[in-house]
């Protein structure tokens, strides 16, 4: 049944969790939420009859607990699909795809090209958002916990890299590019994509039990993709519509 959707329609908005990480999500100077993920969500909810979205910024790690605790109706934040996340939430079909990237000091002094390289170099410290994909990738590659520094947000991560507190900062390619271009620091360079790390795609993440709402969302998402409006929304942010359309939730959730 579609009771959740009816609720949202009645209330006139959906509560979405976003991160503070351009270009996935962004907050303008006037406080207006934008970025590729919220823009897509806003459009689809509008088509579903839900007027608007209300966003609250959250750490990646807090998003799923927050969703489960009923603090949000959906996560639209570039939270990439991974099997264990698929088990915890109900994802929509893919929306934004990106590969992983490193920001590091000019000339890549430690020669880091993959998470494995970091694991192998006992001096290399990596910064990543807490509870994000990059943290997991690093840990899975065998980087010990004490060399994976949990960084609260992108700006802090870049700052810590510049200040030499970490040797490499890892985020999706587009996020890193956005950060580095804002910083405009000649001493920082980007390695993208990271070797051996797959391209990930996010989806809008719904609470388990809200599958009906998710399915309705998927229907509109498919139409959006079909019509080409999807590309119009995300490509200005640098995302590839083709990448999202060439894969499915099923594949991504089964990966590894």
């Amino acid at each position, binding site marked *: 049944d579609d009771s959740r959707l009816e609720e949202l329609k009645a209330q006139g908005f959906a509560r979405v969790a976003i991160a503070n990480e351009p270009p996935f999500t962004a907050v303008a100077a006037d406080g207006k939420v934008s970025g590729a993920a919220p823009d897509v969500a806003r459009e689809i909810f509008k088509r579903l009859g839900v007027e608007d979205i209300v966003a609250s910024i959250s750490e990646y*790690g807090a998003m799923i*607990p927050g969703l*489960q605790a009923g603090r949000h109706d959906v996560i639209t934040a570039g939270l990439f699909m991974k099997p264990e996340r698929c088990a915890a939430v109900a994802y929509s079909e893919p929306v934004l795809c990106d590969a992983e990237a490193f920001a590091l000091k000019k000339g890549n002094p430690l020669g880091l090209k993959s998470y494995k390289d970091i694991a192998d170099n006992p001096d290399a410290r990596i910064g990543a958002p807490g*509870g994000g994909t990059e943290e*997991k990738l690093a840990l899975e590659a065998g980087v010990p916990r004490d060399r994976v520094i*949990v960084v609260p947000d992108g700006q802090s991560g870049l700052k810590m890299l510049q200040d030499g507190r970490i040797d490499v900062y890892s985020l999706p390619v587009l996020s890193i590019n956005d950060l580095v271009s804002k910083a405009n620091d000649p001493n920082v360079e980007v390695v993208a994509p990271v070797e051996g790390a797959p391209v990930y795609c996010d989806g809008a993440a719904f609470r388990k039990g809200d599958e009906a709402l998710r399915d309705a969302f998927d229907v509109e998402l498919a139409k959006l993709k079909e019509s080409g409006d999807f590309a119009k929304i995300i490509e200005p942010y640098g995302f590839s519509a083709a990448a999202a359309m060439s894969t499915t939730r099923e594949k991504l959730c089964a990966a590894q």
Partner: protein
Amino acid sequence: MEWDWNFVWQIMPTLLEGLKITILATALGAALAAVIGLVFAILRMTAPKPLARATSFVVEFIRGTPLLVQLYFIFYVLPDIGIRLPALLAGVIGLGLHYGTYAAEVYRAGIENVPRGQWEAAKATNLTGRQTWIHVILPQALPPMIPALANYLIAMFKETPLLSAITVLELMNQAKSVANSSYRYIEPMTLVGVFFLIMSLISVVFLRFLEERYARVEER
């Protein structure tokens, strides 16, 4: 969501790891606060007017602004002027500075609480200023301060979770990271609460003991 005991035992070692850092940060922060507080107190009470005024302003400023923001400042802004502190050190300095301003008040109050008659008796028995401080004032002023200082030590302990905001892997940060990878907040957060409660209750008992022990000196 159900409480899961297995999960509790699974995350316990990680949390205890964090507790160690929490205690370390508290101990170092307290030691620093005790010293900084004394410096502030002496500057305020004995330095020439302009310096005393400036010290007062600094103390008031630090007391009037959140420790969290001060930590951000120390950790993220100071490197711009070439001061790059490791996270734990930055946290300890933040705690020390912040609580140093509280300690300064305690020192001042403790010294002012020594009755005026004691200063006068010291003068009437012709002791010098230094002798008065060492033999008459401080021996009376210090013991009553101990409970108040201990009180701030406990308060500081409970504020260490702020260090998680500058990447120190203390108790709260460990709990968050456990929560992040398991999507479960109930157990880690409750456990952190229980740890704090246990430590607090122990310290309350200890504090009562200190208060009793050192209240006696005040009898006249």
